């Protein structure tokens, strides 16, 4: 019983930030009087819009560089690309992919430079990142206001200020990049996936045959067959009609997610118990998860929840991108590079002694984060549909970091789960705060100021808590812990 009590207290202590914001969100939703369906609809749009950006913050945290305020620079790289893509007149998903293709090298270069700079000011990355964001904003303004049109000849009535020098305040993306990623249909995704799988399988077969490695090709042929069958299924009219849409009703998404979760647990039990014959393996956890999945499915029949599930549509491709990034963040941890980053994050001295090139690892972390942030900004812009030339990037770091922290992350530790929870809570507050302010104090402006205050305040408190904790902790303990970790790696 005592043990249980301790666990409970621990849980509360670890999740106090999240719980505070859950209470705050519920209170604000209640006060605002907004219908739940409206809040949920807005919320799922915003998760798709901002989730990727928030997840791009995780890698630098792992590498011990704290919260990367420098993601502004990734956003700037994206915006440079978007401007040119719009100027050259590309449209739709091809335009989007081209902007990814163009923005990525810029982001890699920027990330490399930022990493170099951060290596010169270790321990002060966060303040440097903030200042760097403002500095980069200055250069960006110089480029967009004076160099475009002033030095680089650009003439386009829709984009350039009437004097001929400088880019207009807002660029309308409707008709070119708006929803270019969101509207990629599931059918197209399946098609692309099919071609990729087929190409890889055939390549593997040919490679093994030519090189005479002697590897059995049965497995590849099975994969090929499965892929062809799966692709064939999409030609059944009813399936095709379902997949032709680019939005997925939340109800279906939840159902599919729960089924996959349950199947995964069943597979785990079968794999461990029957194939590997691992007697030690406890089936308690998977069974609990399966029950949770079934219970969750049962919940979808509750009236208010059902209403929301039938109301909200989610853009499939965008959400898949976010899921892919979550998977990538997890996979990275299992690679050598990820382990190196973790060691560097725990102690640079130990990492150095273990033969890890600290500076290089840190630069890689920054490059990855900057590129991901750049893609995140592209996703954001294509969803929001209007590109505010001089404003879209300024608050990026602030809001993404605040969201991450609201999810319970700290300067040293941040996970996918915390990022997603953070986005949900932070943006719920963002959606309902003005209305709540209006209902409670008869002043919508107050609610708007309140949400800005939350963004700043949560960062301030979290930074202070972090500094407070690290100040108290004796140095020796930290190093010892890092040593153990690096030995494990």
């Amino acid at each position, binding site marked *: 019983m005592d043990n249980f009590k301790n666990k409970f207290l621990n849980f509360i202590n670890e999740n106090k930030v999240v719980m505070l914001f859950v209470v705050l969100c519920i209170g604000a939703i209640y006060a605002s009087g907004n219908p739940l369906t409206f809040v949920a609809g807005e919320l799922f749009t915003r998760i798709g819009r901002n989730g990727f950006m928030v997840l791009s913050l995780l890698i630098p945290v792992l590498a011990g560089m704290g919260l990367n305020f420098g993601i502004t620079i990734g956003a700037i790289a994206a915006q440079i690309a978007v401007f040119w893509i719009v100027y050259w007149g590309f449209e739709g998903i091809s335009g989007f992919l081209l902007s990814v293709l163009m923005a990525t090298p810029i982001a890699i270069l920027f990330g490399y430079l930022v990493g170099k*700079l951060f*290596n*010169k*000011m*270790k*321990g*002060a990355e*966060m*303040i*440097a990142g*903030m*200042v*760097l964001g*403002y*500095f980069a*904003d*200055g*250069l960006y*303004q*110089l480029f967009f*206001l*004076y160099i475009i049109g*002033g030095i680089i000849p650009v003439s386009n009535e829709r984009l350039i*200020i009437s*004097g001929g*020098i*400088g880019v207009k305040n807002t660029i309308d993306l409707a008709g070119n990049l708006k929803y270019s990623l969101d509207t990629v249909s599931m059918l197209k995704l399946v098609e692309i996936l099919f071609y990729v799988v087929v190409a890889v399988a055939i390549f593997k077969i040919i490679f093994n045959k030519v090189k005479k490695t002697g590897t059995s090709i049965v497995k590849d042929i099975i994969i090929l067959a499965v892929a062809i069958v799966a692709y064939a299924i999409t030609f059944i009219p009813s399936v095709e009609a379902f997949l032709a849409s680019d939005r997925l009703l939340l109800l279906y998404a939840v159902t599919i997610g729960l089924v996959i979760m349950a199947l995964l647990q069943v597979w785990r039990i079968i794999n461990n118990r029957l194939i590997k014959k691992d007697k030690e393996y406890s089936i308690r956890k998977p069974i609990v998860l399966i029950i949770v999945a079934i219970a969750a499915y049962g919940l979808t029949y509750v009236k208010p929840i059902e209403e929301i599930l039938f109301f909200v549509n989610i853009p499939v491709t965008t959400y898949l991108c976010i899921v892919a990034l979550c998977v990538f963040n997890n996979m990275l941890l299992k690679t050598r590079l990820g382990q190196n980053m973790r060691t560097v994050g725990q102690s*640079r*001295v130990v990492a*150095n002694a273990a033969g890890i090139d*600290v*500076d290089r690892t840190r630069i890689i972390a920054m490059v990855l984060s900057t590129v991901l942030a750049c893609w995140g900004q592209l996703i954001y812009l294509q969803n929001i549909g209007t590109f505010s030339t001089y404003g879209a990037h300024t608050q990026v770091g602030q809001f993404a970091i605040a969201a991450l922290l609201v999810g319970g992350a700290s300067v040293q530790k941040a996970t996918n789960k915390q990022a997603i929870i953070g986005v949900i809570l932070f943006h719920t507050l963002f959606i309902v705060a003005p209305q709540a302010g209006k209902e409670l*104090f008869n*002043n919508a*402006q*107050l609610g708007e*100021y*309140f949400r*800005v*205050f939350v*963004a*700043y*305040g949560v*960062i*301030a408190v979290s*930074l*202070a808590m*972090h*500094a*407070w904790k*690290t*100040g108290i902790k004796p140095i020796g303990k930290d190093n010892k812990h890092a040593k153990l970790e690096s030995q494990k790696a």
Partner: protein
Amino acid sequence: MREKINNIYENIGLPRIIIISFFVFMLIISAPLGLSVPNLLGDAIRRWAMYGILVLAMVPAVQCGIGLNFGISLGIVGGLLGSTLAIELEIANPLISIMVAMLIGIAISSLLGIGYGLLLNKVKGSEMTVSTYVGFSVIAFMNMVWLSLPFKNGELIWPIGQQGMRNTISLNSSFGEVFNNFLDFHIGDEVTGLHIPTGLILFFLFTCFIVYIFMRSKAGIAMSAAGANPVFTQASGINVNKMRVLGTAVSTALASVGIITYAQSYGFLQLYNAPLMMGFHSVAAVLIGGASVKRAKISHVIIGTFLFQGILAVALPVVNKLMPEGNLSDVIRIIISNGIILYALSKTKGGNR
């Protein structure tokens, strides 16, 4: 000889050389462009004295060891509260009005500064990161306060709705330009000549002098020692934490005096998000003057503010002549102020650890 030049170069630093040459270059090309050089210089001098005290607030902060104080927003907020209270009281005499504003401002911001100093003692090593966001959150918090303060004076609140303060409050009927107009005179013509706001300059120099005396006093020296070498200072029986709180409080109080001086010269009180980045500008100015994260002198303040504000004062008209559209000087300000902060940060931290 070469070594000497190298030495001087090292001492001044590349960014400062760039900034000084930029300033001189702007001055040189302003005359052929048909701009009145005395006018520009007069503007530079006015802005120098106007911003000076805000920059001066950096000195005690850096010297007591908390580093560059991005959190002077706390003091600024205190000063703004003092000013609004003084306006609400409708004191007729501008001189008394500004004194009341300053006294209230100093009182509020000293209290805030003490609390802030206690917080910074808990977060040793990352004061700058914390102080930036404490500064931002205070401004954001005050946004809500400005909206809901129960002031009644028509100068302060929006005429419609009778709730919430205005964005900019005119100081015409209270203490606007009270220092600027004290014993001011023109060198040369009224329109194109050099205008010297004597009172403003005197007040700025007077404040510098007070800070100078404070830094030379027993407490001031103990404070500087606490900042320079905390372990040694603690060993010699001085309470380092107390000294840091003292330095923070003085810095915050100076910021409140600074914002009031700024506002009286500008003629308007700016509330809400206007002071958000003022901390950054003050930090940039003192760094341009030659200060570092560990050391700042009053001479750094005087030189740095003049260079920083001088560039802005001169660059604006010059650039507008060259490029009529847009506001390049604002962009220049962003690049210079943040560039110099980055440079200073890269000079102090690092190594291969």
